[in-house]
């Protein structure tokens, strides 16, 4: 038996598994996880587009005039200088007051009037809050900031996509490569194939890897595409020429490497353990507390390497509790080459363990009678 035939066997096995990974009912929630950020970004883009159009249709103010607004200004002065706002919202609030002296014990009410004016200069939106005719607070922000959106994307990618979507997606795909066969009582079909157990493992892992990489790298690219879609084409082009291509590549690479790492772990877990919930919970907790661990242990985490590959550091909200900040903050990153090599080393080690397990794998007739295997 030569290696070419072994390769052919692995590909035959992978083709069958690929069909199941892409089309089965189980695949739909994996698609859901992969596409969720793209759907959210798409919804955000559409909402912003409509908001811009609505505000622009009611007139723009000059940026300099918008910047001239100062706290404490009277609403009339602002209206005179900036003109009729695209949005004007007024409301009143009653406040209970307790007079002192002779009138003590009689409850009276005071009316406080509020007004919110919204102006738009074509890029930025100014929201001005007035109380009793005086400007109390103002917020001027870009309605659509490319830089801010890229930071948000970095946050979504690292906090949701890598930690949860890729993690649980790989759990669903890889854990079932062998465990699904055991539950369907069809594992003997594969074990009776004239193939080495390692070839069976390679075929199944390859199928899981192709499926998860296509789904999650595709999901990340789609999300990035949606992010770019709303922004000024000139700005996008400039970004694309400078670092955009590299960013896209590294996001896709991180997603694929996530599938490689998590995939190997869940494949091995599916071979070694009966209950998938336990290894998933343990690994999720391990990845979560990774930042508290000594440096050497940090390197035994898939997330550590993946975060090192991300081109934009994930933003950390300073107003968050310190413990959450610690949990979410990425550890000191490894070099990209080191991260890739480290991740591939961890994967190779886990796959070697999986090979040992698959070689020892047996059909248990006792378990079969109990409908377990």
């Amino acid at each position, binding site marked *: 038996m030569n290696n070419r035939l072994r390769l052919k066997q692995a590909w*035959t096995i992978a083709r069958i598994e690929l069909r199941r990974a892409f089309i089965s009912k189980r695949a739909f929630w994996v698609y859901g996880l992969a596409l969720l950020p793209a759907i959210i970004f798409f919804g955000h883009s559409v909402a912003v587009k409509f908001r811009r159009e609505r505000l622009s249709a009611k007139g723009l103010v000059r940026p300099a005039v918008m910047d001239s607004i100062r706290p404490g200004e009277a609403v009339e002065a602002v209206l005179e200088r900036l003109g009729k706002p695209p949005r004007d919202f007024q409301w009143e609030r009653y406040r209970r007051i307790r007079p002192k002296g002779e009138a003590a014990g009689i409850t009276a009410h005071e009316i406080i009037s509020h007004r919110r004016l919204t102006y738009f200069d074509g890029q930025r939106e100014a929201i001005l809050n007035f109380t009793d005719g005086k400007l109390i607070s103002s917020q001027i922000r870009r309605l659509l900031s490319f830089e801010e959106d890229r930071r948000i994307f970095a946050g979504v990618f690292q906090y949701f996509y890598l930690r949860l979507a890729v993690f649980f997606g790989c759990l669903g795909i890889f854990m079932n490569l062998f465990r699904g066969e055991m539950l369907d009582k069809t594992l003997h079909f594969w074990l009776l194939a*004239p193939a080495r157990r390692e*070839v069976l493992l390679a075929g199944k892992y390859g199928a899981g890897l192709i499926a998860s990489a296509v789904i999650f790298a595709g999901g990340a690219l789609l999300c990035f595409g949606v992010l770019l879609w709303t922004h000024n084409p000139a700005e996008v082009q400039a970004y694309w020429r400078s670092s955009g291509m590299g960013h896209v590549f590294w996001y896709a690479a991180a997603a694929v490497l996530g599938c490689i790492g998590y995939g190997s772990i869940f494949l091995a877990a599916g071979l070694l353990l009966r209950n998938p919930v336990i290894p998933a919970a343990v690994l999720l907790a391990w990845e979560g507390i990774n930042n508290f661990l000594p440096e050497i242990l940090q390197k035994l985490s898939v997330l550590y390497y993946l975060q090192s590959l991300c081109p934009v550091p994930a933003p950390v909200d300073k107003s968050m509790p310190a413990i959450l900040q610690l949990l979410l903050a990425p550890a000191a990153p490894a070099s990209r080459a080191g991260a890739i090599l480290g991740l591939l080393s961890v994967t190779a080690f886990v796959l070697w363990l999986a090979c040992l397990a698959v070689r020892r794998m047996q059909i248990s*007739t006792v378990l079969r009678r109990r409908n377990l295997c």
Partner: protein
Amino acid sequence: MTEPTVIFEEVSKFYGEVLGVNRITLRIPPGITSLAGPNGSGKTTLMNLMTGLIHPDHGSISMRGISSRDPERLMHITGYATQYDAAPRWATGFSFITTGLLLFGYRRPEAEEKAWKALETLGLAEAAHRKMASYSKGMRQRVGLAQAIAHEPELLVLDEPLNGLDPLVRAETIVLFRFWAAQGKHVILSSHVLQEVDAISDRVILIANGMIVAEGKIRDVREEIQERPSKFIVRCREASRVAALLFSEDFITEIRLNEDRQGLLVLAKDRERFSRSIRRIALDGHEIDSVIPADESVDALYEYLIGEGK
């Protein structure tokens, strides 16, 4: 040149604390060999050990010179039709067998041709393109058998292979087994239907409680069976009278009268002479309602063969 043999050397297998098989030593030459034994005796365990689906805790197995721990080489020469009828959800009968053959390294046209041939042999050509999930238990059994024979293996291991086959396909399959055996191949099958074992096999291995209780050519076992008294339940109106008539025969070893005095339990050493006597008694005017053999199951044979040890 020595003929290829299936060899078990001191093989033991335990499922935790449950005994699978214990210290089995066997040499099975080519031909049709039946593993016979009551349910739970270890027949399937023995077959799973032969095909590497399970590994022995102790001892070694050589299948025509190949270790059972080397599936790559072993399954090239082996076809195993398991008792498990669970089918992959993705497969039709045809795609199931073709995919299996592709793993052997056949090119697709060749694999498809062999798959068709196997399906036709087992009478499944019409249902070939239906999803296996929609097959009946008998059809799934036949697909399993078709898959086992599709690559024309030298060693066929078949767990209850004739279950679920209609009489015509059953007869054709037996002819096929004989044809392969005549070519010097191994056909190892399990069964608990005695007549089936008797009709098909060259050799028989009797197994109980995970141990070999008898092994050898089928005629030796048949003789052993014939020496054993057969049990019959006779329902009749005049039980005492019929018992007296039967007791005069020398082949009757024991008669027990039923409490309702309308039935007898008869132990006879010669089945044919017993049948003739009963017929004669009936023709003499004694009313016989029924005569039922009470020990035709394989369990009863084992009770006899291994006595208290069963």
